[in-house]
Protein backbone atom coordinates (compact mmCIF):
# COMPACT_ATOMS: atom_id res chain seq x y z
CA UNK A 1 0.00 0.00 0.00
CA UNK A 2 2.58 2.56 1.17
CA UNK A 3 6.04 2.08 -0.22
CA UNK A 4 9.02 4.07 1.05
CA UNK A 5 12.15 3.67 -1.06
CA UNK A 6 15.61 4.76 0.06
CA UNK A 7 14.63 8.14 1.45
CA UNK A 8 17.54 10.33 2.43
CA UNK A 9 17.48 13.76 4.03
CA UNK A 10 20.34 15.87 5.33
CA UNK A 11 20.18 19.06 7.32
CA UNK A 12 23.29 21.10 6.52
CA UNK A 13 25.56 18.08 6.38
CA UNK A 14 23.87 16.05 9.10
CA UNK A 15 22.04 13.05 7.67
CA UNK A 16 18.81 12.69 9.64
CA UNK A 17 17.31 9.98 7.44
CA UNK A 18 19.63 7.69 5.57
CA UNK A 19 18.45 5.40 2.74
CA UNK A 20 15.36 4.47 4.71
CA UNK A 21 13.01 1.97 3.09
CA UNK A 22 9.88 0.35 4.39
CA UNK A 23 6.71 -1.23 3.12
CA UNK A 24 3.33 -0.86 4.76
CA UNK A 25 0.70 -3.33 3.63
CA UNK A 26 -3.00 -2.59 3.62
CA UNK A 27 -4.52 -3.04 7.07
CA UNK A 28 -1.15 -3.11 8.81
CA UNK A 29 -0.52 -1.54 12.16
CA UNK A 30 3.05 -0.62 11.57
CA UNK A 31 5.22 0.96 14.25
CA UNK A 32 8.41 2.88 13.65
CA UNK A 33 10.60 2.83 16.73
CA UNK A 34 14.04 4.12 17.54
CA UNK A 35 15.82 6.26 20.11
CA UNK A 36 15.22 9.98 20.31
CA UNK A 37 16.75 11.72 17.32
CA UNK A 38 16.73 8.54 15.25
CA UNK A 39 14.89 10.39 12.51
CA UNK A 40 11.32 9.14 12.98
CA UNK A 41 9.65 12.53 12.75
CA UNK A 42 11.82 13.50 9.83
CA UNK A 43 10.84 10.28 8.08
CA UNK A 44 7.16 11.06 8.59
CA UNK A 45 7.70 14.59 7.33
CA UNK A 46 9.34 13.20 4.20
CA UNK A 47 6.53 10.72 3.58
CA UNK A 48 3.82 13.39 3.94
CA UNK A 49 5.50 16.03 1.81
CA UNK A 50 6.20 18.38 4.71
CA UNK A 51 9.88 18.01 3.84
CA UNK A 52 11.37 17.28 0.45
CA UNK A 53 13.81 14.36 0.43
CA UNK A 54 17.29 14.68 -1.06
CA UNK A 55 16.69 11.36 -2.77
CA UNK A 56 14.35 8.41 -2.72
CA UNK A 57 10.63 8.23 -3.26
CA UNK A 58 7.32 7.39 -1.66
CA UNK A 59 4.39 5.76 -3.43
CA UNK A 60 0.85 5.14 -2.27
CA UNK A 61 -0.91 2.33 -4.14
CA UNK A 62 1.68 2.71 -6.86
CA UNK A 63 1.13 6.45 -7.20
CA UNK A 64 4.13 8.65 -6.53
CA UNK A 65 3.71 11.04 -3.60
CA UNK A 66 7.21 12.50 -3.55
CA UNK A 67 7.25 16.04 -4.83
CA UNK A 68 3.56 16.63 -4.16
CA UNK A 69 2.46 19.45 -1.88
CA UNK A 70 0.91 18.42 1.47
CA UNK A 71 -2.65 19.11 0.35
CA UNK A 72 -2.14 16.92 -2.71
CA UNK A 73 -0.70 14.12 -0.57
CA UNK A 74 -3.70 14.33 1.74
CA UNK A 75 -6.08 14.23 -1.23
CA UNK A 76 -4.55 10.91 -2.22
CA UNK A 77 -5.64 9.32 0.99
CA UNK A 78 -2.99 10.05 3.56
CA UNK A 79 -3.67 11.65 6.92
CA UNK A 80 -1.28 12.66 9.64
CA UNK A 81 -0.88 14.02 13.12
CA UNK A 82 2.07 15.93 14.49
CA UNK A 83 4.35 15.09 17.37
CA UNK A 84 4.08 18.71 18.43
CA UNK A 85 0.40 19.39 18.62
CA UNK A 86 -0.82 21.22 15.56
CA UNK A 87 -4.45 22.26 15.84
CA UNK A 88 -6.22 25.60 15.47
CA UNK A 89 -5.65 26.82 19.00
CA UNK A 90 -7.88 29.89 18.82
CA UNK A 91 -10.87 28.06 17.40
CA UNK A 92 -13.27 25.88 19.32
CA UNK A 93 -13.06 22.11 19.09
CA UNK A 94 -16.23 22.19 17.01
CA UNK A 95 -14.76 24.73 14.57
CA UNK A 96 -11.55 22.72 14.31
CA UNK A 97 -13.44 19.68 13.11
CA UNK A 98 -15.71 21.79 10.93
CA UNK A 99 -12.78 23.19 9.01
CA UNK A 100 -11.35 19.71 8.60
CA UNK A 101 -14.63 18.57 7.03
CA UNK A 102 -14.78 21.59 4.74
CA UNK A 103 -11.30 20.69 3.54
CA UNK A 104 -12.14 17.03 3.13
CA UNK A 105 -15.15 17.77 0.92
CA UNK A 106 -13.22 20.51 -0.91
CA UNK A 107 -15.99 22.96 -0.06
CA UNK A 108 -13.75 25.99 0.44
CA UNK A 109 -15.44 27.79 -2.42
CA UNK A 110 -19.06 26.81 -1.75
CA UNK A 111 -20.26 30.27 -0.87
CA UNK A 112 -23.87 29.26 -0.72
CA UNK A 113 -23.59 26.23 1.49
CA UNK A 114 -23.67 27.48 5.04
CA UNK A 115 -21.14 26.15 7.52
CA UNK A 116 -23.80 24.72 9.81
CA UNK A 117 -24.81 21.83 7.59
CA UNK A 118 -22.56 19.14 9.01
CA UNK A 119 -23.70 18.98 12.62
CA UNK A 120 -24.11 15.22 12.71
CA UNK A 121 -20.78 14.49 11.10
CA UNK A 122 -18.96 16.76 13.50
CA UNK A 123 -20.76 15.29 16.48
CA UNK A 124 -19.93 11.81 15.26
CA UNK A 125 -16.23 12.57 14.89
CA UNK A 126 -16.11 14.19 18.31
CA UNK A 127 -17.77 11.13 19.75
CA UNK A 128 -15.22 8.90 18.03
CA UNK A 129 -12.34 10.66 19.76
CA UNK A 130 -14.37 11.23 22.94
CA UNK A 131 -14.49 15.00 22.84
CA UNK A 132 -18.29 15.46 22.76
CA UNK A 133 -18.22 17.33 26.05
CA UNK A 134 -15.60 19.78 24.87
CA UNK A 135 -17.23 20.84 21.58
CA UNK A 136 -17.53 24.49 22.58
CA UNK A 137 -14.15 24.77 24.29
CA UNK A 138 -11.42 26.77 22.58
CA UNK A 139 -8.73 24.30 21.55
CA UNK A 140 -5.97 26.28 23.27
CA UNK A 141 -7.70 25.77 26.60
CA UNK A 142 -7.91 22.00 26.36
CA UNK A 143 -5.66 19.77 28.43
CA UNK A 144 -2.68 18.34 26.61
CA UNK A 145 -4.23 14.90 26.29
CA UNK A 146 -7.45 16.31 24.86
CA UNK A 147 -5.50 18.37 22.35
CA UNK A 148 -3.92 15.13 21.22
CA UNK A 149 -7.40 13.67 20.79
CA UNK A 150 -8.43 16.69 18.72
CA UNK A 151 -5.30 16.23 16.65
CA UNK A 152 -6.50 12.69 16.00
CA UNK A 153 -9.97 13.92 15.04
CA UNK A 154 -8.46 16.30 12.49
CA UNK A 155 -6.42 13.50 10.97
CA UNK A 156 -9.47 11.21 10.85
CA UNK A 157 -11.80 13.81 9.37
CA UNK A 158 -10.18 13.39 5.98
CA UNK A 159 -11.10 9.69 6.02
CA UNK A 160 -7.55 8.66 5.14
CA UNK A 161 -6.66 5.21 3.91
CA UNK A 162 -3.29 5.51 5.54
CA UNK A 163 -2.89 7.31 8.82
CA UNK A 164 0.48 8.50 10.11
CA UNK A 165 0.57 9.29 13.80
CA UNK A 166 3.78 10.76 15.16
CA UNK A 167 3.99 9.93 18.87
CA UNK A 168 0.25 10.12 19.48
CA UNK A 169 0.77 9.59 23.20
CA UNK A 170 3.86 11.71 23.81
CA UNK A 171 3.58 13.55 27.09
CA UNK A 172 0.69 11.45 28.37
CA UNK A 173 0.56 9.59 31.65
CA UNK A 174 0.85 5.78 31.40
CA UNK A 175 -2.89 5.45 31.91
CA UNK A 176 -3.74 8.05 29.28
CA UNK A 177 -1.26 6.38 26.96
CA UNK A 178 -2.95 3.04 27.31
CA UNK A 179 -6.45 4.48 26.84
CA UNK A 180 -5.34 6.46 23.88
CA UNK A 181 -3.61 3.53 22.18
CA UNK A 182 -6.64 1.34 22.68
CA UNK A 183 -8.85 4.04 21.23
CA UNK A 184 -6.60 4.47 18.21
CA UNK A 185 -6.41 0.75 17.44
CA UNK A 186 -10.17 0.47 17.83
CA UNK A 187 -10.81 3.33 15.42
CA UNK A 188 -8.26 2.06 12.95
CA UNK A 189 -9.72 -1.45 12.94
CA UNK A 190 -13.30 -0.21 12.69
CA UNK A 191 -12.50 2.01 9.77
CA UNK A 192 -10.12 -0.33 8.03
CA UNK A 193 -7.40 2.30 8.08
CA UNK A 194 -3.76 1.37 7.60
CA UNK A 195 -1.71 2.80 10.44
CA UNK A 196 1.91 3.89 10.54
CA UNK A 197 2.92 5.32 13.90
CA UNK A 198 5.78 6.08 16.23
CA UNK A 199 5.55 5.39 19.92
CA UNK A 200 8.01 5.37 22.79
CA UNK A 201 6.21 2.87 25.01
CA UNK A 202 7.67 -0.46 23.90
CA UNK A 203 5.07 -2.55 25.69
CA UNK A 204 2.40 -0.79 23.70
CA UNK A 205 4.28 -1.15 20.45
CA UNK A 206 4.86 -4.85 20.85
CA UNK A 207 1.32 -5.27 22.07
CA UNK A 208 -0.55 -3.77 19.13
CA UNK A 209 1.71 -3.54 16.08
CA UNK A 210 1.84 -6.36 13.59
CA UNK A 211 4.89 -4.87 11.87
CA UNK A 212 7.75 -2.93 13.39
CA UNK A 213 10.57 -1.01 11.77
CA UNK A 214 13.55 0.11 13.80
CA UNK A 215 15.27 3.34 12.92
CA UNK A 216 18.77 4.09 14.16
CA UNK A 217 20.83 7.10 13.08
CA UNK A 218 18.36 7.59 10.26
CA UNK A 219 18.70 4.10 8.84
CA UNK A 220 16.21 1.24 9.05
CA UNK A 221 18.19 -1.49 10.81
CA UNK A 222 15.35 -3.98 11.09
CA UNK A 223 11.83 -4.40 9.83
CA UNK A 224 9.45 -7.29 10.42
CA UNK A 225 6.99 -8.88 12.80
CA UNK A 226 7.35 -8.09 16.51
CA UNK A 227 8.99 -11.48 17.10
CA UNK A 228 11.50 -11.02 14.29
CA UNK A 229 12.41 -7.57 15.54
CA UNK A 230 12.69 -8.76 19.15
CA UNK A 231 15.12 -11.46 18.05
CA UNK A 232 17.21 -9.17 15.88
CA UNK A 233 20.78 -8.72 17.08
CA UNK A 234 21.28 -5.22 15.77
CA UNK A 235 18.11 -4.11 17.52
CA UNK A 236 19.18 -5.72 20.78
CA UNK A 237 22.45 -3.84 20.56
CA UNK A 238 20.75 -0.50 20.08
CA UNK A 239 18.35 -1.03 22.95
CA UNK A 240 20.57 -3.18 25.21
CA UNK A 241 20.51 -2.05 28.79
CA UNK A 242 18.81 1.15 27.79
CA UNK A 243 15.40 2.01 29.12
CA UNK A 244 13.21 2.78 26.16
CA UNK A 245 11.37 5.83 27.42
Amino acid at each position, binding site marked *: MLEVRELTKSFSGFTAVNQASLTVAEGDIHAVIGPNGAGKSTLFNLI*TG*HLIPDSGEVTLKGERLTGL*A*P*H*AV*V*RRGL*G*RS*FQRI*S*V*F*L*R*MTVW*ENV*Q*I*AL*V*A*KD*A*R*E*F*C*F*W*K*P*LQNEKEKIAQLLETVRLEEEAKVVAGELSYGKQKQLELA*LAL*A*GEPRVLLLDEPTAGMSPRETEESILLITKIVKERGVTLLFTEHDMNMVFGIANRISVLHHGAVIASGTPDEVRGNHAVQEVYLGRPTH
Partner: protein
Amino acid sequence: MPRRHLLLAAAVVALLALLPLSGSTYLLYLFTQVLIFVLFATSLNLLIGYAGLVSFGHAAFFAIGGYGCAILLRSYGVPLLLAMPAALVMTAVFATLIGALCVRLTSYYFSMLTLAFGQLVWAVVFKWRSMTGGDDGFLRIVSPSWIDTPASFFLFTLVLVTLAMVALWIVAHSPLGRTLMAIRENQVRAGFLGVHTRRVQLVAFIIAGTFAGLAGALFALFNRSIFPDSAWWLQSAEVLIMVVLGGMNSFFGPAVGALTLILLGRLTLELTAFWPALLAIILIATLFFFPSGIAGLLKARGRR
Protein backbone atom coordinates in the same frame (compact mmCIF):
# COMPACT_ATOMS: atom_id res chain seq x y z
CA MET B 1 -24.06 38.89 18.07
CA PRO B 2 -23.55 38.89 14.27
CA ARG B 3 -27.33 38.81 13.73
CA ARG B 4 -27.66 41.98 15.77
CA HIS B 5 -24.97 43.58 13.64
CA LEU B 6 -26.86 42.65 10.49
CA LEU B 7 -30.06 44.19 11.81
CA LEU B 8 -28.16 47.32 12.72
CA ALA B 9 -26.57 47.43 9.27
CA ALA B 10 -29.97 47.04 7.61
CA ALA B 11 -31.32 49.88 9.72
CA VAL B 12 -28.37 52.07 8.73
CA VAL B 13 -28.98 51.34 5.04
CA ALA B 14 -32.68 52.17 5.43
CA LEU B 15 -31.83 55.45 7.15
CA LEU B 16 -29.28 56.32 4.51
CA ALA B 17 -31.87 55.68 1.80
CA LEU B 18 -33.82 58.58 3.33
CA LEU B 19 -30.83 60.92 3.27
CA PRO B 20 -31.78 62.57 -0.07
CA LEU B 21 -34.90 63.87 1.70
CA SER B 22 -32.62 66.10 3.77
CA GLY B 23 -31.89 68.07 0.62
CA SER B 24 -28.34 68.69 1.85
CA THR B 25 -25.81 68.37 -0.94
CA TYR B 26 -23.06 68.50 1.64
CA LEU B 27 -24.38 65.45 3.46
CA LEU B 28 -24.99 63.57 0.23
CA TYR B 29 -21.42 64.16 -0.92
CA LEU B 30 -20.05 63.30 2.49
CA PHE B 31 -21.90 60.01 2.74
CA THR B 32 -21.23 59.04 -0.84
CA GLN B 33 -17.56 59.27 0.03
CA VAL B 34 -18.08 57.38 3.28
CA LEU B 35 -19.89 54.56 1.48
CA ILE B 36 -17.12 54.22 -1.08
CA PHE B 37 -14.49 53.94 1.63
CA VAL B 38 -16.63 51.59 3.68
CA LEU B 39 -16.50 49.19 0.75
CA PHE B 40 -12.80 49.82 0.12
CA ALA B 41 -11.87 49.18 3.77
CA THR B 42 -14.11 46.13 4.13
CA SER B 43 -12.60 44.57 1.01
CA LEU B 44 -9.12 45.05 2.50
CA ASN B 45 -10.24 43.48 5.75
CA LEU B 46 -11.02 40.22 3.98
CA LEU B 47 -7.26 40.01 3.54
CA ILE B 48 -6.10 41.52 6.81
CA GLY B 49 -8.71 40.40 9.30
CA TYR B 50 -9.74 37.06 7.86
CA ALA B 51 -6.71 35.86 5.93
CA GLY B 52 -4.07 37.57 8.04
CA LEU B 53 -2.47 38.89 4.85
CA VAL B 54 -1.44 42.50 5.40
CA SER B 55 -1.53 44.17 2.00
CA PHE B 56 0.30 47.48 1.66
CA GLY B 57 -0.78 47.86 -1.94
CA HIS B 58 -4.55 47.55 -1.91
CA ALA B 59 -4.95 50.96 -3.53
CA ALA B 60 -3.55 49.47 -6.75
CA PHE B 61 -6.89 47.76 -7.35
CA PHE B 62 -8.85 50.83 -6.30
CA ALA B 63 -6.94 52.73 -8.99
CA ILE B 64 -7.23 50.02 -11.63
CA GLY B 65 -11.00 49.90 -11.13
CA GLY B 66 -11.21 53.68 -11.17
CA TYR B 67 -9.03 54.29 -14.20
CA GLY B 68 -10.45 51.26 -16.02
CA CYS B 69 -14.01 52.48 -15.67
CA ALA B 70 -13.14 56.09 -16.42
CA ILE B 71 -11.07 55.33 -19.50
CA LEU B 72 -13.65 52.96 -20.96
CA LEU B 73 -16.34 55.51 -20.32
CA ARG B 74 -14.62 58.61 -21.69
CA SER B 75 -11.93 57.47 -24.09
CA TYR B 76 -13.85 54.59 -25.64
CA GLY B 77 -17.43 55.76 -25.18
CA VAL B 78 -18.49 52.51 -23.55
CA PRO B 79 -21.83 52.91 -21.71
CA LEU B 80 -21.53 52.87 -17.92
CA LEU B 81 -23.48 49.67 -17.42
CA LEU B 82 -20.85 47.93 -19.53
CA ALA B 83 -17.83 49.98 -18.53
CA MET B 84 -18.23 49.23 -14.85
CA PRO B 85 -18.45 45.44 -15.09
CA ALA B 86 -15.62 45.49 -17.63
CA ALA B 87 -13.49 47.52 -15.23
CA LEU B 88 -14.22 44.98 -12.51
CA VAL B 89 -13.20 42.12 -14.78
CA MET B 90 -10.02 44.01 -15.55
CA THR B 91 -9.33 44.52 -11.85
CA ALA B 92 -9.94 40.84 -11.21
CA VAL B 93 -7.46 39.90 -13.93
CA PHE B 94 -4.78 42.16 -12.43
CA ALA B 95 -5.59 40.88 -8.94
CA THR B 96 -5.11 37.34 -10.23
CA LEU B 97 -1.73 38.09 -11.76
CA ILE B 98 -0.42 40.14 -8.84
CA GLY B 99 -2.02 37.89 -6.23
CA ALA B 100 -0.58 34.72 -7.73
CA LEU B 101 2.89 36.11 -7.11
CA CYS B 102 2.16 37.70 -3.73
CA VAL B 103 0.58 34.67 -2.02
CA ARG B 104 3.74 32.70 -2.74
CA LEU B 105 5.32 34.76 0.01
CA THR B 106 4.26 35.02 3.61
CA SER B 107 4.16 37.67 6.33
CA TYR B 108 6.53 40.59 5.75
CA TYR B 109 7.51 39.40 2.31
CA PHE B 110 3.88 39.31 1.23
CA SER B 111 3.40 42.86 2.52
CA MET B 112 6.55 44.12 0.81
CA LEU B 113 5.56 42.57 -2.50
CA THR B 114 2.08 44.10 -2.40
CA LEU B 115 3.73 47.44 -1.68
CA ALA B 116 6.02 46.99 -4.67
CA PHE B 117 3.17 46.10 -7.01
CA GLY B 118 1.13 49.02 -5.72
CA GLN B 119 3.97 51.37 -6.56
CA LEU B 120 4.38 49.70 -9.94
CA VAL B 121 0.73 50.36 -10.78
CA TRP B 122 1.20 53.93 -9.64
CA ALA B 123 4.28 54.32 -11.85
CA VAL B 124 2.43 52.98 -14.90
CA VAL B 125 -0.52 55.31 -14.29
CA PHE B 126 1.85 58.21 -13.74
CA LYS B 127 3.95 57.60 -16.84
CA TRP B 128 1.31 56.45 -19.31
CA ARG B 129 0.24 60.01 -20.01
CA SER B 130 -1.50 59.34 -23.33
CA MET B 131 -3.86 56.89 -21.69
CA THR B 132 -4.23 58.15 -18.14
CA GLY B 133 -3.35 61.84 -18.31
CA GLY B 134 -0.38 61.25 -16.03
CA ASP B 135 -0.12 63.53 -13.02
CA ASP B 136 -2.59 65.99 -14.55
CA GLY B 137 -5.15 63.35 -13.73
CA PHE B 138 -7.90 61.85 -15.83
CA LEU B 139 -10.57 64.52 -15.93
CA ARG B 140 -14.05 65.28 -17.25
CA ILE B 141 -15.51 61.86 -16.54
CA VAL B 142 -19.19 62.19 -17.39
CA SER B 143 -21.76 59.97 -15.71
CA PRO B 144 -25.01 59.18 -17.52
CA SER B 145 -27.85 61.56 -16.74
CA TRP B 146 -29.67 59.15 -14.42
CA ILE B 147 -26.94 59.42 -11.83
CA ASP B 148 -26.08 63.00 -12.55
CA THR B 149 -27.38 64.64 -9.39
CA PRO B 150 -25.88 64.35 -5.91
CA ALA B 151 -28.99 62.48 -4.74
CA SER B 152 -29.17 60.01 -7.60
CA PHE B 153 -25.45 59.31 -7.46
CA PHE B 154 -25.68 58.80 -3.72
CA LEU B 155 -28.50 56.29 -4.16
CA PHE B 156 -26.61 54.54 -6.96
CA THR B 157 -23.61 54.24 -4.63
CA LEU B 158 -25.78 53.11 -1.74
CA VAL B 159 -27.29 50.30 -3.82
CA LEU B 160 -23.97 49.06 -5.19
CA VAL B 161 -22.11 49.32 -1.90
CA THR B 162 -24.93 47.54 -0.06
CA LEU B 163 -24.92 44.71 -2.61
CA ALA B 164 -21.15 44.48 -2.43
CA MET B 165 -21.18 44.45 1.37
CA VAL B 166 -23.77 41.66 1.34
CA ALA B 167 -21.54 39.69 -1.02
CA LEU B 168 -18.50 40.27 1.18
CA TRP B 169 -20.47 39.29 4.25
CA ILE B 170 -21.47 36.04 2.60
CA VAL B 171 -17.88 35.33 1.60
CA ALA B 172 -16.55 36.14 5.06
CA HIS B 173 -19.07 33.82 6.73
CA SER B 174 -18.83 31.05 4.14
CA PRO B 175 -16.50 28.07 4.29
CA LEU B 176 -13.98 30.28 2.49
CA GLY B 177 -13.93 32.81 5.33
CA ARG B 178 -13.46 30.03 7.85
CA THR B 179 -10.75 28.40 5.77
CA LEU B 180 -8.90 31.70 5.52
CA MET B 181 -8.94 32.01 9.29
CA ALA B 182 -7.68 28.47 9.64
CA ILE B 183 -4.79 29.16 7.26
CA ARG B 184 -4.01 32.35 9.16
CA GLU B 185 -3.79 30.39 12.38
CA ASN B 186 -1.91 27.34 11.22
CA GLN B 187 -1.00 27.14 7.56
CA VAL B 188 0.81 23.81 7.91
CA ARG B 189 -2.15 22.13 9.58
CA ALA B 190 -4.57 23.56 7.02
CA GLY B 191 -2.40 22.10 4.27
CA PHE B 192 -2.46 18.70 5.95
CA LEU B 193 -6.23 18.83 6.10
CA GLY B 194 -6.11 18.93 2.31
CA VAL B 195 -6.50 22.68 1.83
CA HIS B 196 -4.67 24.12 -1.15
CA THR B 197 -3.69 27.07 1.00
CA ARG B 198 -2.23 29.27 -1.72
CA ARG B 199 -5.21 28.86 -3.97
CA VAL B 200 -7.61 29.79 -1.19
CA GLN B 201 -5.54 32.86 -0.38
CA LEU B 202 -5.41 33.78 -4.05
CA VAL B 203 -9.19 33.62 -4.38
CA ALA B 204 -9.51 35.89 -1.35
CA PHE B 205 -6.98 38.26 -2.91
CA ILE B 206 -8.98 38.39 -6.14
CA ILE B 207 -12.27 38.98 -4.35
CA ALA B 208 -10.76 41.70 -2.18
CA GLY B 209 -9.08 43.34 -5.17
CA THR B 210 -12.22 43.28 -7.29
CA PHE B 211 -14.35 44.93 -4.63
CA ALA B 212 -11.64 47.55 -4.14
CA GLY B 213 -11.93 48.07 -7.91
CA LEU B 214 -15.65 48.69 -7.55
CA ALA B 215 -14.95 51.25 -4.85
CA GLY B 216 -12.38 52.87 -7.16
CA ALA B 217 -14.81 53.01 -10.08
CA LEU B 218 -17.41 54.70 -7.88
CA PHE B 219 -14.74 57.07 -6.59
CA ALA B 220 -13.76 58.13 -10.12
CA LEU B 221 -17.38 58.69 -11.12
CA PHE B 222 -18.06 60.57 -7.90
CA ASN B 223 -15.15 62.97 -8.39
CA ARG B 224 -15.54 63.01 -12.19
CA SER B 225 -11.79 62.63 -12.20
CA ILE B 226 -9.09 60.35 -10.92
CA PHE B 227 -5.43 60.96 -10.13
CA PRO B 228 -2.34 58.78 -9.79
CA ASP B 229 -2.49 59.45 -6.03
CA SER B 230 -5.27 56.90 -5.88
CA ALA B 231 -2.67 54.17 -6.43
CA TRP B 232 0.04 55.76 -4.26
CA TRP B 233 1.10 53.92 -1.12
CA LEU B 234 -0.35 56.63 1.08
CA GLN B 235 -3.79 55.69 -0.21
CA SER B 236 -3.10 52.06 0.70
CA ALA B 237 -1.92 53.20 4.11
CA GLU B 238 -5.00 55.32 4.65
CA VAL B 239 -7.41 52.47 4.00
CA LEU B 240 -5.23 50.23 6.15
CA ILE B 241 -5.56 52.72 8.99
CA MET B 242 -9.34 52.68 8.51
CA VAL B 243 -9.23 48.92 8.99
CA VAL B 244 -7.02 49.06 12.07
CA LEU B 245 -8.88 52.00 13.59
CA GLY B 246 -12.28 50.36 13.10
CA GLY B 247 -11.15 46.93 14.17
CA MET B 248 -10.03 44.10 11.95
CA ASN B 249 -11.53 41.36 14.08
CA SER B 250 -15.04 42.37 13.21
CA PHE B 251 -16.80 42.39 9.86
CA PHE B 252 -18.21 45.89 10.28
CA GLY B 253 -15.18 47.28 12.13
CA PRO B 254 -13.49 48.69 9.00
CA ALA B 255 -16.77 50.36 7.99
CA VAL B 256 -16.79 52.16 11.32
CA GLY B 257 -13.13 53.01 10.79
CA ALA B 258 -13.86 54.49 7.35
CA LEU B 259 -16.69 56.62 8.73
CA THR B 260 -14.60 57.82 11.66
CA LEU B 261 -11.54 58.69 9.63
CA ILE B 262 -13.50 60.58 6.97
CA LEU B 263 -15.44 62.53 9.59
CA LEU B 264 -12.17 63.33 11.36
CA GLY B 265 -10.76 64.52 8.05
CA ARG B 266 -13.74 66.83 7.61
CA LEU B 267 -13.55 68.20 11.14
CA THR B 268 -9.91 69.09 10.70
CA LEU B 269 -10.10 70.60 7.23
CA GLU B 270 -7.85 73.52 8.24
CA LEU B 271 -5.24 70.96 9.15
CA THR B 272 -5.22 69.27 5.75
CA ALA B 273 -1.54 70.02 5.37
CA PHE B 274 -0.91 67.93 8.46
CA TRP B 275 -3.21 65.09 7.44
CA PRO B 276 -0.44 62.49 7.06
CA ALA B 277 0.88 63.43 10.49
CA LEU B 278 -2.63 63.23 11.89
CA LEU B 279 -3.06 59.82 10.34
CA ALA B 280 0.13 58.67 11.97
CA ILE B 281 -1.01 59.92 15.38
CA ILE B 282 -4.39 58.20 14.98
CA LEU B 283 -2.63 54.96 14.07
CA ILE B 284 -0.26 55.18 17.02
CA ALA B 285 -3.09 55.99 19.41
CA THR B 286 -5.13 53.08 18.09
CA LEU B 287 -2.30 50.60 18.38
CA PHE B 288 -1.45 51.70 21.91
CA PHE B 289 -4.81 52.33 23.47
CA PHE B 290 -7.33 50.17 21.64
CA PRO B 291 -5.56 47.64 19.44
CA SER B 292 -8.78 45.88 18.49
CA GLY B 293 -10.16 49.13 17.16
CA ILE B 294 -13.42 50.94 17.75
CA ALA B 295 -15.37 47.74 17.20
CA GLY B 296 -13.29 46.12 19.93
CA LEU B 297 -14.08 49.00 22.28
CA LEU B 298 -17.79 48.73 21.56
CA LYS B 299 -17.71 44.99 22.08
CA ALA B 300 -15.92 45.37 25.42
CA ARG B 301 -18.47 47.94 26.58
CA GLY B 302 -21.34 45.73 25.45
CA ARG B 303 -19.97 42.90 27.54
CA ARG B 304 -19.87 44.89 30.76
